[in-house]
């Protein structure tokens, strides 16, 4: 089995395939962008108003939305799968109701599933919250977050901000990952939390929102120790990239893939498919120095949408660069409207698939019976606007894996 792409849809698909006993190779240009996101599973956040009960809201989506193709049961199962499969991630939430979390700018954002330390920042219960930072960390502004959260119409939370001046590693600036690593050393952690405690003063029973950098490898230990040191419940607020929770998610998935002996070929790009009748019998992959041919029983394209090269655009239209699959919903040259904050004509473009995630040709028939398209490559969703990206990635990735495993069993 060849899975092309190392984002959430590709990695989840690969792991499910490997769990089902299939030999899997993942081919990816780079490491995928899990490390940019906050490791939350957004199922459905806006439709178009803010969604409180995402699973119930699925029924209102258009018939050609990927969730509609899959049906509620599959979406429910996919939402719960990651928490069950990777318990060490301590994911919370099941898609029944959305949590409301503060973003790096203090906007209030709905999500279905989040790591425990992130979910602890759910603003729905109310109560006082202190947003705090250590100053060497760039691009994290607790006063801005506190003011915006307090002004939100969606939640009723009393907020304030605090900033601690403390050396992180002898540098003027510290990235989230540098802070996360520093917090893993007990002596540095003690220094940093002492400065935070001084800056915050009496918490008065408030929760404390900190930049999402509570350790990388020793996250659970760091989160608990920082909470103890501050004498308060703490939670993680997303930072500008890199995202430490995203790095944890990526590492956890990779570790499981390694345990399952999935072959990971990162740094190489699939460039073409080789037809075998109506099937794709192998992929040509640009590796160092040459094109290498990889035989495949099944191919999963998890290459992403326009932003990540899964779709390419020229002046006249869109194309899918690996297999040349027909792109549905291509608006041609008039891709973008006047208002950049509204849905764009190009947003739903992608590969139209059946319920087994098999691409459909121009006539509506399955194009290649052993090819599957998943994640942001699939037609019919507007992840950035719906807040549905990782939910779609999981649901479509697992659906493709299940279809392949069924076929193998038959």
């Amino acid at each position, binding site marked *: 089995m060849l899975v092309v792409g190392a984002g959430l849809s590709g990695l989840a698909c690969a792991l499910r395939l490997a769990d089902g006993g299939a030999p899997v190779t993942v081919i990816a240009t*780079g490491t995928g962008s899990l490390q*940019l996101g906050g490791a939350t599973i957004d199922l459905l956040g806006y439709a178009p108003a803010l969604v409180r009960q995402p699973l119930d809201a699925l029924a209102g989506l258009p018939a050609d939305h990927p969730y509609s193709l899959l049906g509620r049961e599959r979406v429910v199962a996919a939402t719960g799968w990651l928490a069950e499969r990777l318990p060490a991630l301590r994911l919370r939430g099941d898609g029944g109701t959305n949590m409301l979390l503060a973003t790096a700018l203090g906007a209030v954002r709905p999500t279905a599933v989040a790591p425990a330390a992130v979910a602890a920042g759910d603003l729905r219960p109310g109560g006082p919250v202190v947003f705090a930072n250590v100053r060497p960390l760039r691009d994290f502004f607790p006063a801005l977050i506190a003011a915006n959260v307090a002004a939100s119409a969606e939640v009723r939370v009393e907020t304030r901000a605090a900033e601690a001046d403390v050396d992180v*590693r002898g540098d003027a600036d510290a*990235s989230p990952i540098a802070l996360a690593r520093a917090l893993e050393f007990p002596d540095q952690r003690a220094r940093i939390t002492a400065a935070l405690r001084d800056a915050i003063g009496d918490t008065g029973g408030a929760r404390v929102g900190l930049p999402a950098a509570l350790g990388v490898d020793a996250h659970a230990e760091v989160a608990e120790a920082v909470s103890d040191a501050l004498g308060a419940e703490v939670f993680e607020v997303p930072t500008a990239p*890199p995202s430490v929770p995203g790095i944890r998610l990526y590492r956890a998935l990779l570790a499981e893939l390694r345990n399952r002996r999935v072959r*990971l070929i990162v740094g190489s790009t699939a460039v073409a498919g080789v037809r075998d009748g109506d099937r794709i019998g192998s992929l040509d992959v640009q590796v160092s*120095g*040459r094109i*290498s041919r990889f035989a495949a029983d099944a191919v999963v394209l998890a290459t992403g949408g326009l932003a990540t090269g899964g779709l390419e655009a020229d002046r006249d239209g869109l194309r899918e660069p690996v297999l040349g699959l027909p792109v549905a919903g291509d608006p041609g040259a008039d891709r973008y409207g006047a208002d950049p904050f509204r849905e764009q004509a190009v947003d739903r473009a992608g590969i139209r698939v059946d319920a087994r995630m098999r691409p459909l040709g121009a006539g509506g028939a399955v194009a290649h019976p052993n090819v599957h398209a998943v994640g942001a490559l699939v037609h019919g969703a507007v992840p950035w606007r719906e807040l549905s990206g990782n939910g779609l990635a999981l649901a479509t990735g697992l659906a493709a894996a299940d279809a392949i495993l069924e076929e193998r069993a038959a």
Partner: protein
Amino acid sequence: MSADIRGSLDNCVKCTICETFCPVAQATPLFPGPKYAGPQSERYREPGTSVDASLDYCSGCGICTHVCPQGVDIAEINARARAQMRAERRMPLRDRLIARPTLLGRLAQPVAPVANAVMRTGLARRAAESALGIHRDAALPSFSMRTLQSRARRRRRPGGATRTVVYFHGCAANYNEPGVGMMAIDVLEHNGFEVIVPRQGCCGLPLQSNGNLGPARSYTRGLVSRLAPYARAGHMIVANSTSCGLMLKREAREILGIDDPDLALVGERMFDICELLRDLHDAGELRTDFHPVSMRVPYHQPCQGRGHGFGKPALDLLRLIPELEVIETDRECCGVAGTYGLKKEKYEIAMQVGASLFSDIAGARADCTACDSETCRWHIAKATGVPAVHPLELLHRAYGL
């Protein structure tokens, strides 16, 4: 710089994934990270205006390029800029010396026992540190009395070969570890290959990574002229040094800017030895008459191995050996990056980069560590006290050769 390499910086979306992986930026604030030093600074660079001395702290491991989801050639951009910076300054004698393994090999080999004994003394190492700037604790290879070339010429060849392969052994196998080179030949011959060992020199990689691109190009061209006739005849070329193989597959074109059809052909026919054997196994053509090897072995893939974009073929092969307990390590880099960790001012950084790998190995109660790259093996063995072997050595043992 070739336009496609420099032009790739326009694909950078500042996502910082390279910075989360950069082992050097995590170890020291002296290096600001690949994005900052690479696509961000490159826009402002002009010939004669190298002001960002921090670039010198890039070890050139190449992980940034490998992980970039947007296809930006970060490491290559930085290598070119570093060379430009060094061209504008005086190149230390050390960096000209340690980057010429063939020269060192030719000088040391006739007097190998003496040279090895002398370089093991603390006095010589302190002298080398103060005179040359080679850190006294850095792992240096010893030299062999007989080169691989001479051993290979005198070996007994088995009959019945069904196909031919050309062996590009590189400098380390020739001067420092001819035993490893002979094992490579044995394993290939065991699998039915007739192994041709042409005369050959350095690929130019150490000079390139020390920013000395002009002489590096001469070495690369010299080597390519030796190997190209075989590539034209349709032979596969196999390398057991991951970094030297990568040099011919990719880096000579991308970093040295050598645009030459012979180089392209040699690169296309170049296989890392584990890649070749793994592909053979995938095709059902590798002999699997392995005897059990009851050892516990962490496997560390060298950074340059990742640059090949072929997964972890050594790991796939080691898992074929009965009773061998292989532990896949999950660390980016051992720190040495060829000659980087030998330098007085960078040794501590190299040790810091490798610290988590070293503690993983120490905690694994390992019989030995397996790693494809020679400089990594020397560095890891010195840092951990656990012997480090090429994966090939374990295959050789399992075949009972």
